[in-house]
């Protein structure tokens, strides 16, 4: 009657190994006239975990929003699954990428099971709809939220909400997942759990972009890290290549030491700190 689904939205097949899921080329984004991102060249491929790191205000979340096609590029272009983001309908995008926002809120007392099931919404009316219940159950099991499936979302703790929001994103089953600080509210065990899920998604052929503050977490789990500084990419590459004392110290404006994990060899990033008792007055 009001013609919402004029174009029959065709669900895509699973991405091929190494396929370019999202590609930013010369991307610039302005928010309220202020340049937030400039000259971003970045490609997200199927099968990798790509982490976005950088100090507060460096543009990590904006870059994630740009990759999600939430904000239009002021310059350059953004391709999702090979086509300019603006050429896809909202639903076609929803088949291809899922987004975890930084803080999840739900306006009404929907239960956890209902919130996770919302992740299946794009697939309504497609063949994949038959899998809805299975996908929801899987996502809830993976994030360990099944135990409180019947509780209203609003009654959960911050960490529980974060995991439910992640379960919703997993239930959407897209080729590309964009996660904004999925570990921020979580304890140590659940942080590791979330990153292990990212790892497994990538190994199953999907692409995961994850904004992280914890550089150690990023170094341990990501295939590539993109370091942002002042809206530009300062470096992109394997964590052991880009997480150097020089670059990180400069980007964060604070000296760091990079050690190797004695067991895995992954970089451990530790801020340089004065010894206790010598703290005050050290730099005059």
């Amino acid at each position, binding site marked *: *009657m*009001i013609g*919402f689904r004029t174009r029959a*939205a065709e669900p895509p097949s699973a991405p091929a190994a190494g396929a370019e899921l999202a590609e930013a080329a010369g991307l610039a984004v302005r928010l309220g006239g202020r340049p937030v991102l400039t000259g971003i060249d970045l490609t997200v491929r199927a099968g990798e975990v790509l982490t976005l790191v950088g100090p507060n205000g460096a543009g990590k979340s904006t870059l994630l929003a740009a990759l*999600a096609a*939430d904000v239009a590029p002021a310059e350059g272009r953004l391709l999702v699954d090979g086509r300019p983001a603006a050429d896809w*309908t*909202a*639903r*076609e*995008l*929803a*088949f291809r990428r*899922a*987004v975890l*926002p930084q803080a*999840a*809120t*739900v*306006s*009404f*007392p*929907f239960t956890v*099971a*209902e919130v996770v*099931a*919302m*992740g*299946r*919404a*794009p697939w*309504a009316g497609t063949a994949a709809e038959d899998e*809805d*219940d*299975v*996908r*929801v*159950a*899987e*996502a*809830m*099991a*993976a*994030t*360990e939220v*099944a135990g409180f*499936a*019947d509780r209203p979302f*609003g009654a959960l703790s911050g960490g529980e909400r974060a995991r439910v929001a992640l379960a*919703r994103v*997993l239930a*959407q089953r897209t080729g590309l997942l964009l996660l904004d600080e999925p570990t921020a509210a979580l304890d140590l065990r659940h942080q590791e*759990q979330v990153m292990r*899920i990212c790892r*497994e*998604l990538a*190994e*199953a*052929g*999907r692409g995961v972009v994850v904004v992280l503050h914890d550089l150690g977490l990023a170094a341990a789990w990501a295939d590539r890290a993109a370091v942002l500084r002042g809206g530009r990419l300062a470096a992109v590459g394997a964590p052991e290549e880009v997480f150097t004392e020089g670059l990180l110290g400069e980007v964060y404006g604070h000296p760091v030491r990079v050690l190797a994990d004695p067991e895995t060899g992954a970089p451990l990033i530790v801020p340089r700190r004065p010894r206790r008792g010598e703290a005050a007055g050290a730099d005059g």
Partner: protein
Amino acid sequence: MTAPTATGRRAAAEPDPAGPPAARERGMRGPGSGRIALLTSGLVAALVAVALVSAATGAYAIPLGDVVDSVLHRARLGGEPLDRVGESVLWDARLPRVVLAVLVGAALGCAGALMQGVFGNPLAEPGVIGISSGAAVGAVAAIAFGLDFLGDWTITVFAFVAGLGTVLLVYVLSRSEGRTEVVTLILTGIAVNAFAGALIGLCVFFADNAQISGITFWQLGSLAQATWPKVLAVLPCAAVGLLVAPWFARRLDLLALGERPARHLGVDVERLRVVLILVTALLTASAVAMAGIITFVGLLVPHLLRMVAGPGHRFLLPGSALGGALVLVSADLVARTAAQPAELPLGVLTALIGSPFFFWLLRRTRRRQGGWA
């Protein structure tokens, strides 16, 4: 159970056998569908019962059985007509009023549920945020300036246009960064209500005595002037709104996640908003055009239903229409009979009951949020 099994091709090949059966069965159905069926049939039965009682009750009492007989007779399903006076009271006064109460109540209840969904805010209600008084400005202006170039439709059209304008104004004024904060919405409502009140005051100033009594009727809200032509005038608006609304149920559910997450799930949020705001304006304006300002029905009914049946809009929208109709038919029965032979203004009655409820809701929302942000 700690190993994540939901991911990747492996999981696709063999669905997680350890998945909790409870969660799997529940899927997206929320509270049992049996409960919802029970609630729906309860509401329908109560509505029919109260409507019949209302048609039977009044200064000229008609036995309940005779009401049923007469209705069956007119529907050509047997039964038999009443005597001439009875027939006239029932069909020219009582029934148009009952039917109008059903339509107006359904429109208000459904508009409240819709508006709360669109704004993602349980306190949004056409009366609270000023849509009703905005629509009343249109109706009152049409009365005060003696406009009738559109016949029976003049007041409806004026109420609709003014209501729509008010909705858009409130929408633009109360949003920032894709969200509507409770406090902004309520404050915007205060401002809009004040402005609408001033405009109505101006209209009163310019009106003559006969027009002023008509205007007072709008401000207090009443179904006393119900006639079949009025029912027919409001029917298309209410019908279109009520039929279209449930169609958006699932997308409204997604909107509870926020604007961006809803878009990430494939909802064309801007389009949805525009269409639903038009529908809300249609419902509210048609109700206000016929019955004046009747507040809090759209606040109270969806809220109570959410407590019983959960927030899913698939039931909430039609349920609120049913519940709104039930509340208004009951309220009108009380308004007609409580102070016989005088009649209480209907809008005053709903506000008397609704305002304390609104106060309680405010306190509760505030406590849950830990203060207004």
